[in-house]
């Protein structure tokens, strides 16, 4: 509990960290003549503890999140000598290098696309801004394995381009789409919207005061952008990049289809090809350590600054004029849209058309997977939101060791690639809860484990934007904690929470490895249908469900933008 070493003896407290008030603060002391200050150990003020209504669910969520990792450790610990010596083999080093290389390249390229696009579509007079801001987020609706499939089906051997060139020019070989180049391309094109969205959200919530203050101090627009805006956006750029890096590390579909030898693919091959699953567990553990290192680095560099808009700044953000930069800017947006959205969809449509022509496509067989996918994803999204709320509130409003641990655990599960979660829960289900094994409950649980960080991140950022004084005023007015939450906090973070729910929903729709390994027998989702057909080389058969997946995701995508639009419409109202 509370001990007051410096208070009891009337000792002088000196400030080791000089601050702006150093001259004042460093001489502050409790003079011994203030007798009332001598605090004896039993005269302690009882500190209000973290409310149980938060601590209990928070702890439960953390424990649930720890489940897959715990199994992984158990399996790895039970691994034989062979598995251990495997740990130091050149194979591991090679996999590490290739995985890091891919993640680094994809993150860098995605940031180079996402940050400028976020800026262009919010703060400049780019022509057709609304159009671009919708179009450029849509690639998020294309799962990376579908994107990889379109790359293969377009540029690969026996792909569209090859066929065309062979027919016309007799060209036999194209640059190889398989391997590093193809994997980097596919992952970049379909993950950059994560950065675009997080940065755009932050741009829209920027207090125009910061910007105007800098401009009024004589800094030009570029200086303001570099010195004020970018630093203010740094947390959102970091958050978006983290999403992309972790997505790449745990991506299974694209690297498998494009045959790039990274950890997830190696784990899957190991799991399928051998009876000794501990080697897969060892591989998985190395991958988890890798993602853990990245998370740690991000946490260490994350600023302690808290920015929330003061309620009183009511001006709307001024737009920057692009001037003669308008042509390159539009070209940049158009090229990105073409490569990440138009071409992939065109390829899907082409194969869909071919399927129709040869009547391989059966519409009836699409309905059931669609309903299955949507309903299980919705369940997962709702559950993830419920689990995220206590974690986010603890992290933002009850800072301390306990909350930090719970938040860390909730985020750490993001470091668990889908294939790892799937492996763990297959084992856990089969061995400990046969009742749940191969049920939807376990599948939903796995989705929540995988995508909780997305929900926590959204709710957390909503809370960070919320002026804590509002909640203080409300409780000062006599409302209990839960009433304050329901009447003040919840409505004000609703847009952010909705964005989180949508993110989880879409992630679950597109999820592949967990769905492959944990779906109840006979439970076919759009993802597994697509995968099975693609893996069999049946492009025409894969196209319809892939297309449906893309369309369905795209329909729900506007939900993601709600938070943005809300912020924007407030500006409209204000101005």
């Amino acid at each position: 509990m509370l001990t007051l070493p410096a208070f009891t003896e009337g000792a002088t407290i000196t400030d080791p960290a000089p601050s702006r008030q150093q001259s004042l603060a460093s001489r502050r002391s409790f003079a011994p003549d203030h007798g009332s200050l001598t605090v004896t150990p039993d005269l302690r003020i009882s500190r209000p503890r973290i409310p149980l209504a938060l601590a209990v669910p928070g702890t439960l969520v953390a424990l649930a999140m720890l489940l897959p990792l715990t199994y992984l450790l158990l399996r790895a610990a039970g691994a034989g000598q062979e598995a251990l010596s495997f740990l130091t083999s050149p194979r591991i080093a090679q996999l590490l290098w290739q995985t890091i290389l891919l993640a680094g390249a994809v993150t860098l390229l995605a940031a180079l696309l996402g940050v400028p696009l976020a800026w262009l579509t919010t703060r400049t007079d780019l022509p057709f801004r609304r159009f671009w801001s919708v179009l450029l987020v849509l690639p998020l609706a294309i799962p990376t394995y579908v994107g990889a499939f379109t790359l293969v089906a377009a540029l690969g051997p026996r792909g569209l381009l090859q066929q065309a060139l062979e027919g016309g020019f007799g060209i036999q070989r194209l640059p190889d789409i398989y391997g590093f180049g193809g994997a980097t391309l596919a992952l970049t094109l379909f993950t950059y919207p994560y950065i675009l969205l997080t940065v755009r959200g932050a741009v829209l919530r920027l207090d125009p005061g910061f910007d105007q203050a800098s401009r009024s101090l004589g800094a030009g627009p570029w200086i303001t952008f570099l010195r004020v805006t970018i630093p203010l956006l740094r947390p959102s750029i970091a958050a978006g990049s983290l999403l992309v890096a972790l997505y790449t590390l745990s991506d299974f579909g694209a690297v498998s289809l494009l045959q790039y030898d990274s950890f997830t693919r190696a784990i899957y091959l190991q799991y399928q090809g051998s009876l000794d699953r501990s080697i897969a567990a060892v591989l998985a553990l190395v991958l988890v350590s890798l993602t853990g290192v990245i998370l740690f680095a991000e946490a260490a560099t994350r600023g302690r600054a808290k920015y929330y808009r003061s309620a009183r700044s009511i001006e709307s953000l001024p737009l920057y004029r692009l001037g003669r930069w308008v042509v390159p800017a539009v070209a940049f947006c158009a090229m990105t849209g073409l490569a990440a959205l138009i071409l992939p969809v065109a390829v899907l449509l082409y194969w869909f058309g071919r399927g129709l022509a040869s009547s391989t496509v059966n519409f009836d067989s699409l309905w059931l997977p669609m309903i299955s996918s949507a309903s299980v994803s919705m369940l997962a999204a709702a559950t993830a939101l419920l689990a995220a709320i206590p974690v986010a509130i603890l992290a933002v409003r009850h800072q301390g060791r306990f909350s930090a641990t719970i938040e860390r655990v909730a985020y750490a599960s993001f470091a668990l690639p889908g294939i790892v979660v799937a492996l763990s829960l297959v084992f856990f289900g089969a061995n400990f809860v046969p009742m749940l094994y191969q049920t939807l409950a376990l599948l939903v649980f796995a989705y929540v484990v995988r995508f909780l960080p997305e929900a926590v991140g959204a709710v957390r950022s909503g809370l960070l934007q919320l002026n804590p004084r509002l909640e203080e005023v409300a409780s000062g007015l006599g409302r209990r904690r839960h009433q304050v939450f329901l009447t003040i906090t919840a409505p004000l973070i609703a847009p952010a929470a909705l964005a989180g729910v949508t993110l989880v929903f879409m992630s679950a729709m597109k999820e592949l490895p967990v769905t492959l390994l944990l779906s109840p027998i006979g439970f076919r989702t759009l993802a597994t249908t697509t995968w099975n057909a693609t893996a069999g080389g049946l492009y025409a058969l894969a196209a319809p469900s892939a297309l449906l997946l893309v369309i369905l995701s795209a329909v729900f995508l506007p939900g993601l933008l709600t938070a943005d639009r809300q912020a924007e419409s407030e500006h409209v109202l204000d101005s």
Partner: protein
Amino acid sequence: MTATGDRLPHSVAPHESDLAVRCAGLSKRFGYTLAVASVDLEVKSGSFVVLLGPSGCGKSTVLRLIAGFEVPDAGMVTIGGRLVVGVKSFVPPDRRWVGMVFQDGALFPHLTVAGNIAYGIRTSAERSSRVDELLDTVGLRGMGNRMPHELSGGEQQRVALARALAPRPTVVLLDEPFSSLDAGLRSRLRTEVRAILRQAGATAIFVTHDQDEALSLADEVAVMWQGRIVQRSTPQELYGSPASYEVAAFVGDANFLSGRADDGSVETELGILAATGAVTGTVHVLVRPEAVRVALDETSEIAVTDIEFFGHDRMYGVALPSGTRLKSRVAGESSIRPGDRVRLEITGPVITFPRASQ
């Protein structure tokens, strides 16, 4: 945790106890910063106490300790005679019946003006009549359906005040509520708010670093300095006999000379002056600008350096031969120009403070 807070605010009627708020030995540390150091503060029911002090001296922290948003490291607080924090007890903020008004208003952005004011009113029967009454009180009749962002800064602060008064709290805590408003609006609003609070019979603790605000509003001023309360008195006393050199420097315009004091008089470069206080030795001598009279004198070595004109009076800056600069406040017309030579005359006794040996 003692849960004694279920009583309604009216049951802790202000006259039941003489004191609306009492803090004793209140202390709070943030890391190595001692934000609040053993603060004792008594606020009588119905009075208006201003907590005045420079930025970072711990004023906001004192309010937050009273309201229950921070937990002290030592000390106790009673509100309306009820112990809300102290040894082994902590009453959460929602059971303290304390109204808060913050600098930025902190209005609930998703609720209308009426919704904001009604938020703290528990009985639904009373709600609409009380909201109308409060809208009248703060001069915003008919604006109940506006959203907060449709109000000006001053209007927002009035709504914040009405919202704080709605549940009839034992005490209203105002943390620099006008500091983000422009000067004209600020002085108008503070008089108004003072009247509203008086009319409502409310007890208020008002935090500011603006001495004019403090002197013009307060029944009683508590001056904070480095986490402590260094003086508590009426505004007149505070101005006339500040408790320390720091307080004197902070409150009002002040001239300081150094001098040697001896038994009711002090020797300065202006000659021997009558002094209050029984201090002897090396001292700071406080001379208020209005105690310095200037008169044209060609033979003097004292020059006028600048003149600030305030309408009702003017402030001369003069330089002594030693280089020391003084200010003199003079009412009415005068033909003195910068560069003119003047003679100084000090009216009334000056105040001395012991000078810490350096």
